């Protein structure tokens, strides 16, 4: 219903544009005495002015209803349910609402109690009222806006200035969206994490070594509280990141050196984009490769060496991730090496140093801040990588440095704690937000440090 209004919106805008232009054309021309009437702006500006006034009010109404409509409806249904006296002790209004929303409240079977039917009826009615109201306001807003614009349209109206001001405000609001996203991330993570830390102390979370978030169904069961010591998860994340960096660090740096110093221009022209393809392949593809191809290979090789290998080993995930982040290291290191002034290299070569001596003793040290920045960004990328570890690493929270063992990571835990769960009041689901907050801050710090290091380094040679 409201979906159709989104399609009507462009029509309204077009109507406003047309109305504004015809009005402007009617205003211009000659007056009764034969004097030419000069408008302040072009007819197009009047048209744009009318378009803005006829399209922005209904657009705002649609956005507001899309964001807050279901909150209003749900609030109303819950209030009616509470007032109806139909609820039992074991059936809260939130439960009923969830059943109704997910379509579980069918007409027969166990979810067809009187409160369900009642809630379904109230919900249908409330939605009907909401749709009617939104549609009404939508057209009233559009009509009112157009009427207002038309009534203000005289030869003296500075239409272009008005339109430009509206455009500037719209542009500004668009650039605020990115800030709002960050605020949204920080606030939502903080809010949910605070609820988690009210249940589990931060000391236990950051220092505890026992992780078993599966809580029992009944409060009186043994082990009902779960254990939320996240150290094994951090250790697993570090292990996989270390494996990934052990591969991507040296290989990425050497690849960058080859591209920057040894490769011919034509080789560089095809090698660089092909290398960057690696980063363009979706991580779910690397994850599938790690799980279906690398995992069994690693296991076979490990067992041939007489080692005990878990079927989901840290090594397989770390290998795939290491390959995936090679381009991050190599392209940023390549940039850093190329930013070092030619004179340094030429001076070293002129003194009789070989190319490799020049690279090792002059170029790499000179480019070191940029290379460190590249490594930091790669680490941040590896820590936040999800799909490869979800598909190839395990769920067991082991504290080990053995790459053949199964470990788990922060991202895997966030995903497994939240996927498929719809309730957000248990410590188990809230733990995911605490992990998310930790992840966000660690990656944020790495990124900030890397950005500062790289910027300083650039300034040094400019």
């Amino acid at each position, binding site marked *: 219903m409201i979906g159709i209004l989104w399609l009507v919106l462009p029509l309204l805008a077009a109507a406003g544009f047309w109305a504004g232009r015809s009005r402007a054309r009617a205003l211009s021309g000659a007056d009764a005495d034969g004097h030419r009437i000069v408008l302040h702006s072009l007819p197009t500006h009047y048209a744009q002015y009318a378009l803005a006034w006829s399209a922005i009010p209904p657009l705002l109404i649609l956005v507001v209803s899309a964001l807050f409509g279901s909150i209003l409806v749900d609030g109303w249904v819950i209030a009616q349910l509470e007032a109806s006296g139909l609820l039992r002790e074991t059936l809260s209004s939130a439960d009923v609402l969830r059943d109704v929303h997910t379509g579980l409240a069918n007409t027969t079977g166990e979810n067809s109690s009187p409160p369900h039917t009642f809630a379904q009826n109230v919900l249908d009615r409330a939605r009907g009222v909401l749709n009617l109201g939104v549609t009404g306001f939508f057209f009233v807003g559009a009509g009112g806006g157009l009427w207002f614009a038309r009534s203000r349209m005289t030869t003296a109206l500075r239409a272009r200035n008005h339109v430009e001001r509206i455009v500037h405000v719209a542009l500004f609001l668009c650039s605020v969206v990115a800030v709002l996203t960050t605020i949204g991330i920080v606030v939502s993570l903080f809010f949910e994490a605070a609820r988690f830390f009210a249940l589990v102390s931060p000391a236990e979370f950051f220092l505890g070594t026992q992780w078993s978030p599966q809580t029992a169904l009944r409060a009186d069961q043994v082990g009902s509280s779960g254990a939320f010591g996240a150290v094994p998860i951090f250790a697993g994340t570090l292990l996989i990141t270390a494996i990934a960096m052990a591969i991507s660090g040296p290989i990425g740096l050497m690849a960058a050196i080859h591209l920057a110093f040894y490769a011919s221009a034509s080789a560089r022209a095809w090698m660089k984009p092909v290398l960057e393809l690696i980063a363009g392949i979706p991580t779910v593809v690397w994850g599938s490769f790690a799980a279906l191809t690398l995992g069994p290979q690693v296991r076979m090789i490990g067992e041939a060496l007489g080692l005990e290998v878990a079927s989901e080993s840290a090594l397989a995930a770390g290998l795939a991730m290491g390959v995936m982040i090679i381009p991050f290291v190599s392209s940023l290191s390549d940039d850093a090496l190329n930013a070092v002034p030619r004179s340094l290299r030429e001076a070293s070569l002129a003194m009789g140093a070989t190319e490799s001596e020049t690279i090792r003793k002059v170029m790499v040290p000179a480019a070191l801040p940029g290379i460190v920045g590249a490594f930091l960004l790669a680490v941040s990328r590896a820590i936040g990588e999800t799909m490869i570890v979800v598909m190839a690493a395990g769920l067991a929270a082991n504290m080990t440095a053995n790459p053949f063992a199964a470990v788990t990571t922060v991202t895997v835990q966030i995903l497994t704690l939240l996927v498929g769960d719809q309730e957000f009041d248990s410590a188990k689901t809230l733990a995911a937000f605490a992990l*998310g907050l930790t992840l966000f801050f660690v990656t944020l710090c790495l990124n900030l440090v890397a950005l500062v290091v790289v910027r300083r380094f650039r300034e040094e040679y400019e």
Partner: protein
Amino acid sequence: MSSPTPDAPLAADGRLRRRYRQERVFRAFALAAIGFALSALAGLLVSISYQSLSVITQSSVELDVVLDPDALDPLGDGSAASLAAANYAKPVRSALRALFPEVRKRRERKALVRLLSDGAEYDLRALVEASPELIGSTQTFVFPLSDDVDLFLKGSIDSEVDEADRKISDRQIGWVETLDAQGRISQPWNWRFLFAGDSREPELAGLQGAIRGSMLTLLITFLLSFPIGVCAAVYLEEFAPKNRFTDVVEVNINNLAAVPSIIFGLLGLAVFLNIFGMPRSAPLVGGVVLALMTLPTIIIAGRAALSAVPPSIREAALGVGASPTQAVFHHVLPQAVPGILTGTIIGMARSLGETAPLLMIGMVAFIADLPTGVDDPSTVLPVQIFLWNDAPERAFVARTSGAIVVLLGFLIAMNAAAVWVRRRFEMRS
């Protein structure tokens, strides 16, 4: 008094040789590093293409089906209601059993029927409903075989392995070989893989639902992130005053580009699903989350494209009396469009491959129906890959690789479009 001993130049020679050897070793290492990275990429592509080969065709069997009016038209009037109530499994099974009249035991008859895919009866139903006048005649149709028979026929199941360790029994292999000898088994193109929805049965599972879900999600992402991203880039590059706030926005956008994607999933879950009560598993919410993720990419690309426009164009426009807004929208922005489009296509390609945030907002459910709107529950291509990757049936391995090939195909097409846009622009200027 010391004079150079005769062997001093020799020592220098040895040092030089050593230094040159080190140079060669270092050079070889650098080349090997790049070789490793490129061969890992090649290994990935080759192994996935190879694994996906078997999904191109689907083993099928040709059966002469007696379209028995008693089973297919229970009400006897040929109406739609009658056809809907019909038993389509029976004629297919009878047709297969008719080829092996010697199979009498109940268990063996069941094993025989299991050669066929569960999809056979749905195929028959579609055929009969399309042309009800065939009821009463005997027709030759081609039906898909089950995933295990398919694997056996494509050589993925070794008949030398102990019978208990494989999914297809010796008797079944015998029947399949008899059918093959009769020339009834064929390998037609597996169109179902591209045009059917998801299924629990590997031989019936298709990508259409995921492709449509991806398209709908990407549409929402584009509709939100493109206008907002371009407007933000125009504001920051052309109009923003140099002050604290602009600095904050700039640092913020750079950081947002590096935030792990799963964090955006948490945002979508906590804000769009829990606070705003938007529908779970819907392309609408997926598209909004991906739009927020893609926004920094588009803004950064847009600003780069805008700043690359020569200042002379802006100054010329201002010089002949355009307002600053007119100068930007009439002269600077059109010049920057190719750069912005290239950045946008690359951002879209990245969000097409994104999985983790969509898992968080519930796009992991098994959904067999094709989505028709942006608030229908659906899944997307990368999530489909994730789901099939975890499925226990062996035949899903090939499907996973096939889905990856399709996803990579879309990505290649999008990147080719980006390159094409850039080339066109370069030719013009």
